[in-house]
């Protein structure tokens, strides 16, 4: 049994698990496996994910492009034959930052305001494209679902990014922009109310403002200030209150962060960096899940073979034998490299016994069914095979 598996299954365990890691390490699949693992232990669980692979979505029985909460049919599992009813419950939801942003505006703002802000080009950019909006909205959705109190556990699969840490920093950046009324304090003397938004009237009264408008263009500055004015009056309160609550929730004892990585240098370094950053900020860090490990837990000595002694009693074409041994040795090289990386990780963690390291072996097949995912979920219980 691993501490991570225990935390996932424990009825008194964390209510939120956040899976972080750099892109391409299998975060979404691991998140789904964690959700299934909890559901099998009897918990009511939901997985919030960004963009699952088609096959994974199929495996979970999710309809594409739907952003509502969908139930995962646990009764489709092979082992379900012996159940009277499923032990727990698993749901999944695909996050769409743009629509989450729109919903949020709808919650706080009058219909008239909504109509105008949805048309504002800066809003469109902010909600759709801006770096950080995905991360911020994932946090928002998490908070909303947490407050509904319908689930024992929420698993959040963080947005894909090059650096694992982006997820933590982006919302703060976003809030600096949205929750800060600094802009208005700065500009108010120069603004005059228009029908919707404001116009710079006295732009030439401030040399700084004049210079800025010269660089970015007067019209851009006006569009921007129009957006900020709308935002400031209607949304500021709601946004900053929520931001503080989300932050408190993430740092609290109901949350557990897990770092997902593969045994390669860059993803592992990112995961270690992330864990250090989390702990430095007193955020609850639970451990590492190292995904796609070759030859998990094999003794290096056991892996050695003597080419002259294998296939002695079985006739094999010598050329084929040579190729097979080449493949085997290549794989062994990878296994040794993986083992070294993981040893280094364990060494770095040192004596901190609260940090768990779970290794998940590289599979030769993709996850295409719920049973495949269940098999993966079971692997979370083992330190190594």
């Amino acid at each position, binding site marked *: 049994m691993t501490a991570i598996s225990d935390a996932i299954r424990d009825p008194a365990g964390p209510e939120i698990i956040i899976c972080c890691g750099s892109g391409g390490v299998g975060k979404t699949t691991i998140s789904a496996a964690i959700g299934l693992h909890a559901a099998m232990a009897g918990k009511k669980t939901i997985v919030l994910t960004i963009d699952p692979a088609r096959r994974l979505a199929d495996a979970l029985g999710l309809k594409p492009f739907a952003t509502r909460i969908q139930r995962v049919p646990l009764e489709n599992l092979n082992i379900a034959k012996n159940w009277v009813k499923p032990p727990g419950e698993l749901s999944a939801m695909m996050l769409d930052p743009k629509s989450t942003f729109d919903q949020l505006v709808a919650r706080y703002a009058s219909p008239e305001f909504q109509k105008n802000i949805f048309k504002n080009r800066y809003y469109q950019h902010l909600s759709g494209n801006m770096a950080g909006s995905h991360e911020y909205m994932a946090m928002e959705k998490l908070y909303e679902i947490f407050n509904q109190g319908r689930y024992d556990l929420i698993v959040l699969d963080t947005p894909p990014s090059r650096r694992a840490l982006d997820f933590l920093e982006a919302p703060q950046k976003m809030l600096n922009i949205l929750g800060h009324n600094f802009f208005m304090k*700065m500009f108010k003397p120069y603004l005059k109310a228009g029908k919707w938004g404001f116009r710079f009237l006295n732009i030439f009264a401030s040399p700084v403002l004049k210079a800025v408008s010269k660089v970015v263009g007067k019209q851009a500055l006006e569009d921007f200030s129009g957006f900020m004015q709308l935002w400031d009056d209607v949304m500021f309160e709601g946004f900053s209150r929520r931001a503080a609550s989300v932050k408190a929730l993430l740092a609290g004892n109901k949350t557990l962060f897990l770092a997902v990585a593969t045994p390669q240098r860059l993803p592992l370094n990112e995961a270690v960096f992330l864990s250090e950053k989390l702990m430095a900020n007193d955020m609850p860090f639970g451990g590492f899940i190292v995904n796609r490990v070759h030859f998990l837990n094999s003794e290096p000595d056991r892996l050695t073979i003597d080419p002259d002694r294998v296939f002695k009693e079985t006739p094999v074409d010598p050329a084929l034998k040579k190729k097979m041994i080449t493949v085997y040795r290549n*794989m062994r090289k990878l296994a040794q490299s993986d083992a070294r990386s993981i040893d280094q990780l364990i060494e770095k963690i040192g004596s901190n016994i609260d940090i768990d390291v779970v290794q998940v072996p590289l599979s030769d097949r993709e996850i295409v069914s719920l049973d495949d995912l269940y098999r993966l979920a079971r692997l979370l219980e083992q330190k190594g095979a």
Partner: protein
Amino acid sequence: MIVEDRGGREDPINSAEQEEDVSADAASSGAWLEDLLARRLIFVMGKGGVGKTTISIALANAASRLKKKVLLVELGDADSVGSFYDQTLAETPARLSHGIWGARVDARAELEAYVRAHIPSKFIAGKISRSRLFDYLFEAAPGLKEVMSLGRLWRWEQEGPRLPNASFDLMIVDAPATGHALSLLRLPDLLIKMIRVGPVANQLRAVQHLLKNHQKTAVVLVTLAEELPVNETVELYQMAEETLDMPAAAIFINCVYPDFFNRQDTRQILSLKTSFQNRPAAPEHRILACVVNLIRRQISQQKHIRKIHAKTNCHVHHMPYFFTNDMTLKEIEKLSLEIDRSVSNPSGNQL
């Protein structure tokens, strides 16, 4: 541990209908590579974790063998290129190896330089750069950072040949992961509509002109032969052509398993595996498990590779897997020879 066989589902390895392997584009001689490296600016794009940096460096190596002076550019916060060379890249190009230089675009420094260039009064320019308003605009103004980064690339392209120290023939940009890279490249179109007049608008038009100049600028896509990266690549391929008007010049499929075994081999391997089924302690059992595992993953790779060939229409290059976790510069050098290899040996991707 090798994940064991599972019942209940048809195993593609047993099916006699195993389709022919797709080999790299045999028809294309070296023309595509010459054509690609003759440009001034190459954006290397793809999903996180597919090996964009590796391919960027390999392309730089290939270009430097053609006696070109290359600038590897890192955009954004990460410094993946630098970490391969044990250097921290900065705004000023630094020499990385023979004929290859590296730089990291610092959008904020760019913006400050930009303000200085457009504000005649040094005093006011300085005041702006130090003001909180500046910090604020820098974070909040949509795309300002990105515009500045693109502007830097444009200026390198313009000034490049004139700088005594840095006359770059080619810039290779190790772009951020797909989503961010796309919004970056779409930005000039978007912002020109929003801003229209002023120095930023003029700058944007110049940048846009460079990006859409097919003789000067190319997009290269990198992927793994796996489901998600391939889907993203196919989408990106279409967007590059239709939305960005920056058609992909080549697709690199990274980490492709070499063809060790033909169909006859596979049949023999499977029958051997059966005969060792009940002897899990035998080394042969381990070897066979390993080999079967590789063949399975190869079959899966080929399926995804076929999809790329079917859905795209540019040069597709298969880069062999080196069975190593972390490519070193030495290995990337070897990998870069694989880019050239199709030139002399059109039959392609065999190790």
